[in-house]
């Protein structure tokens, strides 16, 4: 326990769902956490308060549009000033705008690429010098099995998530000699507000293709992220770990 004591973890899209689970689990392991989300101020502050109360760590919410380059640079600067630096960066924020390619608008494409992929360029760039100064750091990017396999009606999402893997491997190579690990997690179908809003028949059909035959929990992703952020994973970089019940093997 307390694998991450004394560390500062910045988690994007941590107002709810998988991001919240990651922030909460990292706090359980002793990390101070910073939540970036575009959710309403009240919900974000409540999420931070819940984590701080539960684990006795410092937790803060910053309302931040991670797809905006300038906003991210400014907000990360403020975080580094407030927390003294960032040790763990978890790029989790993401959205879907599913349509078959023929029906997909340019806006659907741009929005998903901006929020799911460009956002990671924005945050990694904002933290890059911080990591180089520390000569250590952990970057964990949330990809998806869709990025590995492709998925009908998700040209935008799968392209972004495949892009995340290329970005992960490049950053891993750039910063390996500086003591920074960069890895990706590729979740399968996980119980989140996104899957709760799905047509339940479609969800069951999807789950029937999962070798384990069941949906994953946000904690499955969170525990993997804690492992990658810990010293136990110090020799792992540029890796993509599937947490998917076997769907993409």
């Amino acid at each position, binding site marked *: 326990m307390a694998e991450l004591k004394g560390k500062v973890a910045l988690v994007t899209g941590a107002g709810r769902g998988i991001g919240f689970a990651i922030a909460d689990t990292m706090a359980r392991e002793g990390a101070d956490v910073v939540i970036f989300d575009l959710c309403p101020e009240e919900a974000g502050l409540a999420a931070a308060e819940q984590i701080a109360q539960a684990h006795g760590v410092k937790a803060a919410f910053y309302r931040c549009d991670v797809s905006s380059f300038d906003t991210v640079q400014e907000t990360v600067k403020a975080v580094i000033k407030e927390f003294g630096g960032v040790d763990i960066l978890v790029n989790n924020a993401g959205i879907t705008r599913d349509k078959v390619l023929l029906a997909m608008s340019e806006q659907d494409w741009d929005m998903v690429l901006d929020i799911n992929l460009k956002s990671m360029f924005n945050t990694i760039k904002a933290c890059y*010098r911080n990591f*180089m*100064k520390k000569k250590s750091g952990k970057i964990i990017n949330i990809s998806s099995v869709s990025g590995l396999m492709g998925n009908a009606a998700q040209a935008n999402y799968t392209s972004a998530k495949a892009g995340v893997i290329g970005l992960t491997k490049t950053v891993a190579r*750039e*910063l390996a*000699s*500086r003591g920074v690990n960069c890895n990706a997690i590729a979740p399968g179908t996980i119980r989140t507000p996104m899957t709760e809003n799905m047509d339940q028949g479609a969800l069951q059909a999807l789950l029937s293709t999962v070798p384990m035959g069941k949906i994953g929990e946000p904690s499955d992703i969170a525990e993997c992220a804690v492992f990658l952020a810990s010293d136990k994973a110090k020799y792992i970089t540029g890796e993509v770990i599937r947490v998917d019940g076997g769907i993409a093997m």
Partner: protein
Amino acid sequence: MDIFAKLTEVLADHTGRDASEFTMDTTLESLGIDSLETVEMVMELEEELDAELELDEKVATVGELVAFIEKKMAE
């Protein structure tokens, strides 16, 4: 402030060579300094010069790096 002198001190530290060996035309590549190490040197100079010097352009020689730092400090 003599930026060239400051930079050659940092270069000497990074390469193990004597500061007098460097000229404005010396290429960083010839010293075995890659782009990431250039960023690191600039970060060290930031602290020494108490300035923000985010390296946002490609520099190939000591002279180009000096010019970049002088430009940033004048901003």
